[in-house]
């Protein structure tokens, strides 16, 4: 693996991790909100 390819691999992994983290946080917030709303039904 050339240094350029290694840099690209790390960049892609980092951006995927960030997106995945953001998606998980979003679902935590969504499930919290859904739970609060459903408890009030």
């Amino acid at each position, binding site marked *: 693996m050339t240094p350029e390819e290694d840099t690209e691999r790390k960049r*892609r992994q980092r*951006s*995927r991790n960030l997106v995945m983290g953001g998606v998980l946080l979003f679902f935590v917030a969504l499930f919290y909100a*859904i739970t*609060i709303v459903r408890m009030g039904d």
Partner: protein
Amino acid sequence: MTQTVPLVLPADWRDFFALTKPRVMSLVIFTGLCGLLAAPGSIHPVLGFAAILCIALGAGGAAALNQWWEADLDAGMKRTAKRPLPAGRMQRGDARDFGIALSVASVLVMGLAIGWLAAGILAFSILYYAVAYTIWLKPRTPQNIVIGGGAGAFPPLIGWVAVTGEITMMPVLLFAIIFFWTPPHFWALALFVKSDYAKVGIPMMPVARGETSTRRQILAYAVLLVPIAAAPWFIGGTGMVYGLAALALSLAFLALSLPVAFRQTGADDAMKPEKRLFAFSILYLFALFAVLVVDRVLVANGVTA
């Protein structure tokens, strides 16, 4: 002896996003939202948001599974050759797993947050698109667009059922409107965009049955669309604003399909009637569903009957 192992970089997250066909998803979200807003009763905004999100995720999952299955076909067509799988930017198994994960997550969240009837219809719509349409019928019959239109027709039905919790005549009619709208919409496009579906063995109507037959079928669906689009008003499910708008829009659709039905493509044909019908078909669906929501707001506030 050394062996060369091909370097496989992890796919970019944008390629996963592209697998969900975001442009198609915008129409899915719009019609799903209109079904949800036009339904009698009310839904908490958080639950409404969750329902639309699940519809969008389910559509994205089905689109990913469609591209996983059709990767070889996509590679053979100019329009689709740059998609993540045929372009080699992603492993095929990753697309399959991503599609399954999105589909399962969307159905589970829909079931837990909204109800299992809406979740069941969502699961059925995903299977219908990914299996019945993509795998089974698309390569086998020139009626594939008619069948595929069924998959696109589910969002307003699911949106409506998310609010009411039951299947009644109204959401079935919303399903029928998109079902009967899809063939003339797509075939108008197929007449002026020379696709290479034939090259990869997919029997699209203009190639499989010929141009004349396709043009006559466009007219037949446009005729059927007039009573079907106005039916929500006839059965008392909407007010007059929707009814009159539906009739006006559908008659304009029919009027634009007439010149398409009774002509033949000539040499150096600009295909203006076909392009006009296709452009109007998009406006038609957006306008019809927007008026459905406006009508519901007017009736709910006692402005119209």
